[in-house]
Every structure is written in C-alpha cells, then in structure tokens.
C-alpha cells in the first residue's frame, strides 16, 4: 500500500495560480529593460534586396534596429539551418526581417512601420508533396550542405527534402502477394497551432563580461542554454536560463523558437535586458506550428484478419526550417503501424521544406498522423472482411511476445491493450446505438493507439535533494511545470520515497540552469516517468546517508539502523534520533559533529537506447510504450452537419496513476484538444502565402459548448519495472487516436469515408448531398 502515490492531492501550484501570483515570463520586469518588436516579411519566399532602417533608428525611444544582413549565425541542435533573423532571403511570411529595440513596446511598434524593405519575390510552395518534387522552388540552396548529425538527419541534396526516414522491415512485396485483402487511401492532417494560452515570451540580457542571461517560456532550458552557447561561442557555463511557470506548451515551446532571435537582438545592446512578448498573431505566424502531413497508406491482411503488409509514405510540410521537426518525421514513421504487429513494413517519411512557419513538436509527436491512417484502414479492413473491428484489432495487437516495427519485442509489463479495448467497447458499444431520427444520424467509432517517446539517446533527468534540520526536504529538478501537474506528482513521489507527508516536501518551482540539475527537456510525457525515477534515486541515497549518520551515533553497523520517515532507529536497542538532527551530520551537545550533510543527487536514463539504423530504420529506439483505446458515440445534425460527441471513452494502461485526478485531467483535456484537430482546426493560407486565420475566432479551437456530453476515463495499472511505482508516460496519449475514432464513428453514422482533417459541418452536408 502507498500513502502518497495513487492519491488525489491538490496541486502544489494551484493557490498561486488562482490568486494571480504565479509568475509567467511576460509578467517579469527587470531593471534596465527595453522592449522589442519584430518586422515580419509578409511574403512567403523572396530575396531581400534592401533594408533601410535609418528613419526607424532616429525615432523617439528607439535604442537599436537590428537586421540579419551581416548575421552569419545558423542555429540548431541536429540540423543547423536557421538564422535568427533573415539574411538575404525570407522563407516564410512570418519570418523576422528586422527587430526594433525601444524603451516601450509602442515606440518599437511605431518604428517598425518606418523600416523600408524591398524584396524580389520567388515562387513559393506550401504543399509538402509539391515541395518534394524535383522542379519545386528550392527553399534552401544549401540543403545537404548544412552542418547536421548525419546518423539521424538524412537530407536529399538539390531538393527540399531535408530529412528522409526509411523503415524497411521484412519483405513488403511478398507481404502484399500473400494478402487476401488490401485497403488504401490518401490522408491529410493539416497544419495547426498548439494554442497554448500563454503567447511565447523571452527576455535576454548580455552582460558586459560576455555572459548571457535569459528568461523564457520554454520547455527545454538546457537545450536552449546549449543553443545560445553554440550561437555566440560562449561557454555553456556562462549562459544562464530561467524558466518561470509555463502557460501551456504542448510541444510548441520546445526545443527553441523565438529565443535565438531575442538573444541575437539583445547582443547589440549589452547591459540591457530586451523583452519580446509575441502577440497571438505572431504565435501563429512566427513561432512553431504542428502536424502538416499528407500521406498514403496501404494495408494488407489475410482473410482471417491477420495483418501481413503495410506500405506508407508521409510528407510533412515542415516549414522554413527543419531542426525542430526531423525527429517528429522519424517517429511518425516508427509508429505509423499503430499498436499492431505487421511483419512486413515499407515506410518513407519525408521532412520537406515549405514556405510556412516551421513545424515543431505538438502533443503526440508524429503519432496522431500515422494513427489516423492505420485506424481508418483497420476499420475498413474489418468491414471488408466482415470481422468485427475489436476482433481484428485483438488478433493483431502488439501484446506479449509480438514484435513492433522497430524489431523490439513486447513483454507483458508493457501493458494490456486488450483490457483497454474491452473497457471502451463496454462503455460505448454494449448499449444499442440510438436509431436515426428526424434530426440526427448516430454512429459509434473505435480506435487503438500506442505511443513511444522519442528522445535523445542520452536523455536523462537528474534530481538534487537537500534535507533541512526540521526533517523537511527540498526537491530540485528541471522538469517544467506547464500545466501537466509535474510539481505535484514530484512531491507525491518524494513523499512516498521518503515516507513523509507531502507538506514536508518543497519542489522548487523556478528552473534556473545555474542552480537546477541538468535535465534533457520536458517533452515526450517523460517527467513523471524519468524525473520520478531520479527522485527515487535521490531519496534512496538520502535515506542511506541518514542511516549512516545514525550508525555513527549508535556506534553500530548501518545494517542495524531502521528509517521510518521521522526517525532513524536502532533495531536492537530501540534508540531513535529525529532525522532532522541527522540532516547536517549529527552534533553532540558539545558541538562535535560527525557524519555527512544529507544532500544527494539522483538520476535516471532510459537505458540502452540507440538511434534507428540509417538503412532499415529499425533498432532499440523506443524506450517505453503506453497503449490505449478510445471509442465514441456521436450524433450528426441533419440540418447543419454539426457533430455532437455524446460520449467519449478513453482507456490507457499507464502502469500507475500517481495522482488519479491530474491524470484524468490530462485525458479529458487531451481528448478535447484532439476533437479540435478532428472537427475544427486548420491553418489556412491566403493567395499571397500569408496565413489567413491568425487569431481567434478565425482560428477555431474548442470552447465549452464543443465538449463531449460525457467523458469516461479508464486508467489501468499493469505492474512493470519502468517508471516510479510503474508509472509510465500518459500525457500526450489522449490526443493520439481521437481523430480516427471520430472519423470511424462518422462512417458508422452516414457511411462516408473521411480521410482528411478537419471534418467540418460543411463537409458533412456536402457528403450527405452527394450520397443522395
């Protein structure tokens, strides 16, 4: 039994957040701070022929106008292809061309209007399949020549393809020859905006000694630190990054977005802090977008439903720069099989430069795209073979003993997907679907998912623990609190590991690379799992130190000392010492002190990961899996085409829900975000290559009227030896299978095979008209 894990504790950040005291980056004002505004190109692909900043420079309050004209910096983490400000060429309409630094934001904005830029327009391309063609306008003349890590990024020189991931498993030709039934289709998952409610913000100061300090709304402080260090050739030890609370991330604030721009501008005014807060329009045009896939998938099965072959091609409109998206493309390839064993796979994924904002991580990280394809095709396969979908799913699920697309063997402890299926099926399918009436069609859909986090092979979390003389402890990690509840979960894990109440645990709320322990980054739903293990490690070492200190006082062997969360106790004599008295070593009455201060470091890294083999795309690249299923009952209004979600059920095997309430919150919120992608959200472009829907309400996201009438959430807990008390990644997962689940339900309701997102009421009405 656990005392603190598996219980619903209130969030440790909640009081600060309901009282308006929680500090986000935009809330920070520093001494000697200036404000920055950015001039964006407004054209998708053009050569810059001249920039005249003279009038702007002479305006009231203007301190500096910065352009990229003499900037030879390219930044990146694996593919160094992006300048902080356009230098000679713009590659998307939101690209920064100049930055004004002034005393007030208004003065900076006024000066922007006076900057004169002339351009020579170039043909532009937005569609990833068009962009991948040989005769497409070339967006990067130096594609293939940029510095890149060649084991993982595979550019095709002379084209817009900056990354080609290949998965080659088995013999796909033979597989399709053996197939009795083949289904296939073209799919689209459009570009969309993460829409974290907090717009991106960053503040940067170059100190006069050459060191750099930054405050940023960012999920990856240490990646950001290393990028800045690399950009300005300053030792990483001279770069300090602070991250306050994050107002949502969903991947859009990793790895870096606006920070290199702000730092570059700030480098021209050393001694001043320079602050940039994006407008909502700029979040959409000038930070990162998500998804943007066009794909084709072909799936073959035997007449008994056994899957034998999968062939897929996926083209990602990854935008003007590729560093934040190449890994998503790779993962999209790994995982496009969904949670199914398919012996023969042939998958090509192309990360393609397009004249749109760069794509970055977005909740689900390449999984929703492939899962849309495979789940829609499974539904079709089941109908074609006249086998119930749950049956055909169960026949092919990646369960104990099966081998995934990467060649990794699945074991029992990886999770029970059949249980997940039974749960959601039981919720949605056991009652009769309402009969079509005058106003509505009704339908039910089912989809299955798995997610494996993509991470750097050395990705680790580390934890500093410090015990105080009252026996309370500080826990310091660099996991970013961006709404997922990580600080609350960290405090519960520490409480359990130390066997002391949550109120005695203080998890550091601000991350500061000068004081916080190294962490890869807060992505891939890994903080509970990886950070939690680091906490366990630090706690174990702290208890060992306490026992050691007590053994010195007891003049006994450490093996004779017990620890109960309050005291260290001599097992034989029953003598006991409060742990606080051992926190700095033990001091006798005369002041003589023995033992070791209780400060420890813990770490956890998912072991033995490798990058996928460049030729086969296979290897030990996935460190963990979480499996799940989702099902929905929907109704479609005949008059309007509007879809209501009457009941949405989700089941995931997450190993252990450390905090069932916050875990449920992740699922319920993720489902609604997935419904946005399914039924509403799409970045649209005007004829001139600018984005059309740059703010609410034109960019439509779910509001309270759009949510399911009912959500049911099952969290199953198959014991495993992975995360702390078996807890596994689960935060992105609720979004992964929402779209195919709803599209399968739409087919059930009206018999139309949708394959492109979003499905709008007008699409529904159009399809009903066509059928009639």
């Amino acid at each position, binding site marked *: 039994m656990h005392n603190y894990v598996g219980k*619903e504790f*209130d*969030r440790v*950040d*909640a*009081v*600060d*957040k*309901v*009282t*308006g*005291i*929680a*500090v*986000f980056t*935009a*809330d920070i*004002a520093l001494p000697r701070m200036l404000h920055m505004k950015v001039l964006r190109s407004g054209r998708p692909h053009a050569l810059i022929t001249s920039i005249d900043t003279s009038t702007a420079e002479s305006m009231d309050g203007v301190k500096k106008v910065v352009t990229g004209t003499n900037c030879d910096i390219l930044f990146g983490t694996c593919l160094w292809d992006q300048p902080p400000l356009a230098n000679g060429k713009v590659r998307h309409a939101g690209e920064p061309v100049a930055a004004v630094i002034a005393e*007030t934001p*208004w003065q900076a*904005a*006024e000066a922007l209007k006076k900057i004169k830029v002339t351009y020579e327009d170039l043909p532009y391309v937005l569609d990833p399949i068009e962009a991948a063609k040989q005769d497409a306008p070339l967006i990067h003349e130096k594609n293939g020549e940029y510095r890149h890590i060649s084991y993982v990024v595979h550019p095709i020189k002379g084209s817009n393809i900056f990354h080609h991931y290949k998965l080659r498993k088995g013999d796909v030709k033979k597989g399709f020859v053996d197939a009795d039934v083949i289904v296939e289709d073209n799919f689209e998952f459009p570009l969309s905006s*993460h*829409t*974290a*409610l*907090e*717009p991106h913000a960053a503040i940067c100061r170059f100190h006069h000694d050459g060191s750099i300090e930054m405050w940023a709304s960012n999920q990856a402080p240490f990646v950001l630190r290393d990028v800045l260090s690399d950009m300005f050739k300053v030792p990483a030890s001279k770069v300090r990054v602070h991250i306050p*609370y*994050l*107002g*949502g991330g*969903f991947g859009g604030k990793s790895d870096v977005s606006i920070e290199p721009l702000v730092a570059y501008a700030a480098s021209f005014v050393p001694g001043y802090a320079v602050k940039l*807060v994006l*407008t*909502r329009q700029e979040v959409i045009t000038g930070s990162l977008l998500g998804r943007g896939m066009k794909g084709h998938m072909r799936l073959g099965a035997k007449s008994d439903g056994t899957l034998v072959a999968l062939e897929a091609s996926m083209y990602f409109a990854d935008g003007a720069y590729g560093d934040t998206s190449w890994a998503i493309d790779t993962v999209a390839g790994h995982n496009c099989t969904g949670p199914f064993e398919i012996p023969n796979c042939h998958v090509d994924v192309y990360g393609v430069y397009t004249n749109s904002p760069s794509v970055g991580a977005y909740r689900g990280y390449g999984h929703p795209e492939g899962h849309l394809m495979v789940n829609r095709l499974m539904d079709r396969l089941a109908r074609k073979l006249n086998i119930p979908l749950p049956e055909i799913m169960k026949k092919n699920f990646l369960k104990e003993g099966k081998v995934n697309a990467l060649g990794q063997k699945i074991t029992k402890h990886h999770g029970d997907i059949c249980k997940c299926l039974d749960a959601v099926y039981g919720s949605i399918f056991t009652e009769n679907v309402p009969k079509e009436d005058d106003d509505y069609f009704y339908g039910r859909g089912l989809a299955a998912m798995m997610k494996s986090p993509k991470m750097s092979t050395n990705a680790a979390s580390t934890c500093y623990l410090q015990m105080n003389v009252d026996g309370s402890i500080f826990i310091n990690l660099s996991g970013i609190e*961006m*709404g*997922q*509840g990580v600080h609350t979960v960290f405090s519960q894990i520490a409480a359990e590991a130390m066997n002391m109440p949550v109120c005695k645990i203080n998890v550091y709320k601000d991350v500061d690379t000068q004081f916080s322990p190294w962490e890869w980054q807060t992505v891939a739903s890994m903080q509970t799992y990886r950070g939690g293990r680091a906490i366990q490690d630090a706690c174990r070492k702290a208890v060992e130190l306490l026992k050691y200190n007590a053994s010195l006082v007891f003049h006994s062997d450490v093996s004779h000392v017990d620890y109960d969360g309050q005291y260290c106790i001599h097992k034989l004599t029953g003598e006991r010492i409060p742990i606080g008295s051992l926190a700095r070593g033990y001091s006798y009455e005369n002041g003589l002190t023995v033992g070791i201060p209780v400060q420890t470091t813990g770490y956890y890294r998912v072991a033995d990961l490798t990058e996928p083999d460049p030729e086969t795309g296979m290897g030990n690249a996935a460190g963990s899996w979480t499996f799940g299923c989702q099902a929905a009952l929907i109704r479609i209004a005949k008059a309007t085409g509007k879809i209501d979600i009457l009941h949405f059920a989700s089941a995931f095997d997450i190993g252990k829900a450390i905090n069932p*309430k*916050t875990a*449920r*919150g992740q699922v*319920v*919120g*993720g*489902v*609604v*975000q997935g419904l946005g992608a399914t039924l509403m959200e799409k970045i649209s472009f005007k004829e001139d290559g600018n984005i059309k829907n740059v*703010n*609410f*309400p034109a960019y439509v*996201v*779910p*509001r*309270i*009227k759009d*949510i399911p009438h009912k*959500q049911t959430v099952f969290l199953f807990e198959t014991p495993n030896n992975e995360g702390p008390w078996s807890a596994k990644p689960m935060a992105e997962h609720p979004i992964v299978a929402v779209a195919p689940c709803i599209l399968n339900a739409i087919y059930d309701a009206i018999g139309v095979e949708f394959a492109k997102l979003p499905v709008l009421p007008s699409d529904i009405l159009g399809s009903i008209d066509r059928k009639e």
Partner: protein
Amino acid sequence: MKLINMTVNGDKMVAYIPDGRVMLVDVLRDQFGLTGTKVGCGVGQCGACTVIMNGEPVTSCTVLAEKAESSEILTIEGLAKEGQLHPIQEAFIKAGAVQCGFCTPGLIMRLYALFSKNPDADETSIKDALGKHICRCTGYESILEAALLAQKELKTLV
C-alpha cells in the same frame, strides 16, 4: 500624456497614460504590477484578461485605459482577503480546474461577476459565461464542475 484615476481592488490609483493606444490591461499589468490579469489574444476573444469594471466583466485588452477614468476595478489579486481564498478560488482547486493557470484568473473573474449578479444562474447561463473563454488544457469539464461547486458554496454563505 494624461493621468487617469481609478479604484483598483479598493485602492485609489493614478495611472499615467503615455502616447499610443493604451489598454486597461496594460495599465493594470505594467503600471500597477497586477500581472494576474493575462493577455492571451489581445482581441477580447480568449477571456484571459477579464476583470470586473463597475460590476461588469470586461476583457481589459479591449478597453481603452482612458475609459476606466473614475471606475471601480476588481482584479484577481483583489479576490482573496486576509489570506482567505474566495470560494470560487477554493472551488477551482478542489475541482482540479487548474492546469497551466494562464486562463484561470479570467475564468474566476467571469464567474465572480456572474454569481454576484445572479447567484441562481442555471447551467446554461454558466456555460454561456464560460463560453467567452478559451482553456487549452482542461477540456472544460473540471471548470464547469468548479463553477457549480462554487455556486453551491456561495449560496451557503448567503
């Protein structure tokens, strides 16, 4: 340049209005340090900047600062009294309606305005009020739960 007077959270305040289009939210955040009021969209569509002005909920990013002359403003910072959270704040915590927290102050102020005027607001009215806000984290379920919980609690206090 202009000076304007307003009462904010019970305190008499004077704001200096520099050149340009200055909004109420800018004055609250930049001059009074009341950064609990957030800017999510700048066009009054997401509700994060909602404050109470003369008893009415307004999106402070669309109200010109000079329009606030002589007005009574209540922001999220003015809700908790002497270390005691307001029942709506308590309800948000209890219902698990807080995730990233960026939309939270605006939602709480919206509900404060609603329940001050109409303690018996039905679920449709509550949903209409919440419908003026965007939350990207919670999926709204827990926010509605918090609203209903707060309403119940507020009624017991009357």
